[in-house]
Structures are given as C-alpha cells and as structure tokens.
C-alpha cells in the first residue's frame, strides 16, 4: 500500500508559494519554442490547474516533452534553444530575468522520460536534493525524509535493506521509482512526469498510478503518457498535442468521449499515431 508523505513541519514553502487548493497554478500564454532553427512549439496557450493531474497526450515528436521542460526551464541548458511567450506560475513570470532558476526547479520537480539515477547509492540519490538545497543537515532527519520519499514512491520495501548499494544495480522500473522518490524528497509544489511508466511492468505501473492519485492532494501533477488508458485512469484533465500545437484540452472524460476537434477524436480512438 502506498502511504502519503508524512507532513514535515520543519520545512516551509517559500513565501508567496502557498498554493490555493484549486485554481490556476500555471498559466501559459502564446508560448513558442525553438531548437536553434527548428520550431518545436507554436502558440501554446493553456492553464494548468492546481492539485489535479493533467495528462499530455499526442504522437511521438509532437512536443510534449519540450513543453514539459519549458515549465521548469530545463530547456535553458540546450544550446541554441529559445522561448517566446509567457509562463506564469502562481502569477510569477518564470522567464522573467529576475527569476531564480534554481529555486524554480526546486519548486517544480521533474521525473525524466529516460530514468537517470545518479551513479551513487540508493540513499544518496534521494538525499542529493535535500543536501544541495540545504534542507537538512541532521542525519536522523535526512534518513527520515529519505525513507518517507522511498515509501511514497512505492519502492521502500524493495530497497530498505540495501540503501547503500549503487542505484545502478536496480531494475529499470525500480530506477524510475527511485527517480520519483528523489523528486518527491524535496517536496516540490508541481511534479512534471515524462512517461514515468514507460519502462514499467503492469504491476509497477499500477503502483505508480496509485501513487499519482495519492500525490495529487498535495502536488500539482503533469504527466506525459502514450498510454490512453493510463491518461484516462489517472488524469483529471487532458491536453492533446499535435505537431507542436495544443489542439485541445479539457476534462479527461470529455477529451476521450466527446472531443470537439476531429484530430483529437482520431487520435484517442486510435485511428492514427
């Protein structure tokens, strides 16, 4: 069974970040994105709601990962990448020159499409974020946070006896859950998950989905998935992307049963892509 994260009184969110239980968490307006010459996103305008799960769907190469990565400015490190338009998180422009990118990324956690555990011990993987952010120095508290995070990511029972082993010894699915634990450890407000279950077997996938369901009470979650059933199961809202454009977004049920766009209908019914 998945247990929710134990609330931690020692850790306070940055001021102004107290998210309302509902409402717009991320507001995107007229977003264009370019990899050097190639335009990967055009005129994306959408709102992402707080404390719900939003799923991004669309054919391979349509820009889902690119869009996700603009939300924590992970694309900044790609040479020649360029962003136009505006993204507000809690009303703050994250591309404003005054924005502290390190702080932004601490608040907007990310689980990558390709799992990327550090070549360190399982424990150190989860502790890394706590250490670099100076969240805690106390050994006991560190251990507590690591344990909580591993439990929250439904991997504690499998690794509790070998926390000092290298994370690279874990299976692909375990590595992915470790990466989720690592992201949860620093308690971001938003969690971006890029196909978190693509390397997992059905049982592990189900655990991740249960986990996502649990987490949305505390986090705003965006998940990219190629699996329509998964999108339907875990998400409250769904956004359909096609060739760098946001074709349609709305309540998941509506997107899957009565989309307004023909393109969306073709995609979700499996007529292409």
């Amino acid at each position, binding site marked *: 069974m998945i247990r929710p994260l134990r609330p931690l009184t020692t850790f306070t969110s940055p001021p102004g970040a107290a998210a309302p239980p509902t409402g717009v968490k991320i507001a995107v307006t007229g977003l264009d994105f370019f990899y050097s010459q190639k335009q990967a996103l055009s005129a994306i305008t959408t709102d992402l709601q707080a404390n719900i799960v939003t799923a991004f769907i669309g054919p391979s190469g349509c820009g889902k990962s690119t869009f996700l990565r603009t939300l*924590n400015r*992970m694309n900044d*490190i790609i*040479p020649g990448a360029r962003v136009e338009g505006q993204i507000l998180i809690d009303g703050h422009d994250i591309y404003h020159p005054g924005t502290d990118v*390190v*702080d932004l*990324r*601490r608040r907007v*956690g*990310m689980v*990558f499409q*390709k799992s*990327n*555990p*550090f*070549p*360190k011990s399982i424990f150190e993987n989860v502790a*890394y*974020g706590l*250490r*670099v*952010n100076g969240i805690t120095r106390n050994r006991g508290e560190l251990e507590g946070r690591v344990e909580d995070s591993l439990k929250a990511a439904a991997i504690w029972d499998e690794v509790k006896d070998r926390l000092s082993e290298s994370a*690279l010894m874990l299976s692909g699915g375990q590595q992915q859950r470790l*990466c989720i634990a*690592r*992201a949860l450890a*620093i308690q971001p407000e938003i969690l971006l998950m890029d196909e978190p279950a693509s390397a997992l077997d059905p049982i592990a996938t189900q655990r991740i989905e249960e986990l996502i369901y649990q987490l949305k009470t505390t986090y705003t979650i965006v998940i990219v998935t190629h699996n329509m059933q998964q999108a339907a199961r875990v998400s409250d809202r769904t956004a359909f992307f096609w060739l760098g454009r946001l074709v349609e977004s709305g309540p998941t049920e509506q997107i899957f049963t009565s989309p307004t766009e023909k393109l969306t209908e073709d995609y979700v019914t499996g007529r292409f892509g």
Partner: protein
Amino acid sequence: MTRTTRRYVEWTIERALFACAVGSVLVTAGIIGVLLFETVAFLREVPIGSFLFGTVWTPLFSDAQFGVLPLVGGTILVSAIAMAVAVPAGLLSAIYLSEYANPRVRRVVKPVLEVLAGVPTVVYGYFALLFVTPLLQTFLPSLSSFNALSPGLVMGIMILPLVSSLSEDALHAVPNGLREGAYALGATRMQAALRVVVPAALSGISASFILAMSRAIGETMIVAIAAGQQPRLTANPLVPVETMTAYIVQISMGDTPAGSIGYRTIFAVGMLLFVMTFVLNLASDWLRRRFREVYA
C-alpha cells in the same frame, strides 16, 4: 578487374597488414627480450634484494653499490612535484571546459591543449634549466642550479594538457541526463559539476591521473637536463637528484664498455622503469574500461 584479381588483391592487402601487425609485435617482444636477458645477467651478479632495496647507487665506483632506491626516489620526487601541479590545475581546467565554457571556447581550447602536449620535451628541459631555476633562485637562494623542484614544476606543466584533455573527455562522456537530474533537484551548476558529474567520471579522471603519472615517471629530457646527476635518496626538492631515466641517459652517452656490469645497470634500471610504467598504464586502462562499461 576480374573477380579473381580482385580477390588476389584483397588477399595481398590482408597479408601485408597482418605482416605489419606481427612485425611490430615481434619488435616489441624483441626489445623486452633483450631487456630481460641483460637484466637476468645483471641479477646474476647483484642479488635482487640489494638492487631493489639498497640505498646507495655507485655503479661506476671501484667499490660499486647497486641500490636503486636513490634513482627511484629521485623519479618519484620529481613526478610527485609534477603531479602536484598537473592534477589540480588539469582537473579544474577540465571542469571549466566541460561544465562551464561555452561550446565555442571548448572547440578552440581542446586542440590547443593537444598541441601543447606535443611540444618537444627538450624545449621544456631547457626552459626549466635556463628560465625556471634562475627565476626560483631569486626567492629561494638555497636552490641548486640542478634540482628536483624546477624540472618537477615544468614537467607538471608538460603533463597538464594530458590530464586536462583526458579528464575533460571523461567529464564530457557523462550523460546529460545526470546533469539534468541534478538541475531538476535545484542544484546549481557547481553542485551538479562537483557532486554528480565529477564523481560519475571519477574512474575516467583517475585513469588520466595515472596515465600522467606514468608519463612523468618515464619522462627523460627535462630531468636529464635540469635535475642533475647525483643519485641521492632525499625528499628535499632543492638539491640535485638523479632519476632512473636521467641515469640511463648518462650511462648510454658515456663510455661504459658493453657487457660490463656498469653497462648492464642500464637494462636493469630500464626493466624496472618498464615494469612501473606498464603497471600504471594497465591500471589506467582498466579504470577507463570500467568507466566505459558504466555508460555503454
């Protein structure tokens, strides 16, 4: 060309290449063979224990003593000074090039480093003797004109590009996903570099250190020119010493008759040098292979 002539040409080329490969292996084996033969002849006259652990090296004196430790000590002293320069400077510049410099700077600096690694070492040798030593003497008056310090420092500069370039390769080979993983957790560039990328590249980086060490131990010209020819077991970098390589040069250029015991010392010292660098190269290679396995 007909099918048969084409096949004949193929066959000839294949044989010729094979002959080249066999030839170079045979030459190497021959060199090692001669080295071994002369070393064995040497060790028949000098017990191996007093060779390896003796602390006095006076092979050309009438009461000759063959304790190689002063030469080994001189070699290690100079190499250690070189490593003290090359390791921190090389690693820092590698981190800068791989993690901070923009790609354009990297594209320019990397080849320049590799050119630096190709400067003839005799140039470095005279640089040490005629420039660095006098310069150091202005604030270290007790420094002899031949000493371990100056060639050590210059040798450090010589192997720095090697450390820098190979460490940079190792850092560069760390998958970007790891950097992104660190950034996504709110790491700064420096935290990502020092706590994720460098540890991830550690075996490749250590391989570059060991290879540089091996280069330093085998380096000849700089020490032959600037370190002196006085075999002495000391940790004092200000006095003349003699390294294994410098000793070999000294005897080879002298008029020691072939077949004499003095002449055979060259091969015994050469053999020891060969074993030392060979072991270091193997270690470096093993580390690098292991590093590649992790990121296959």
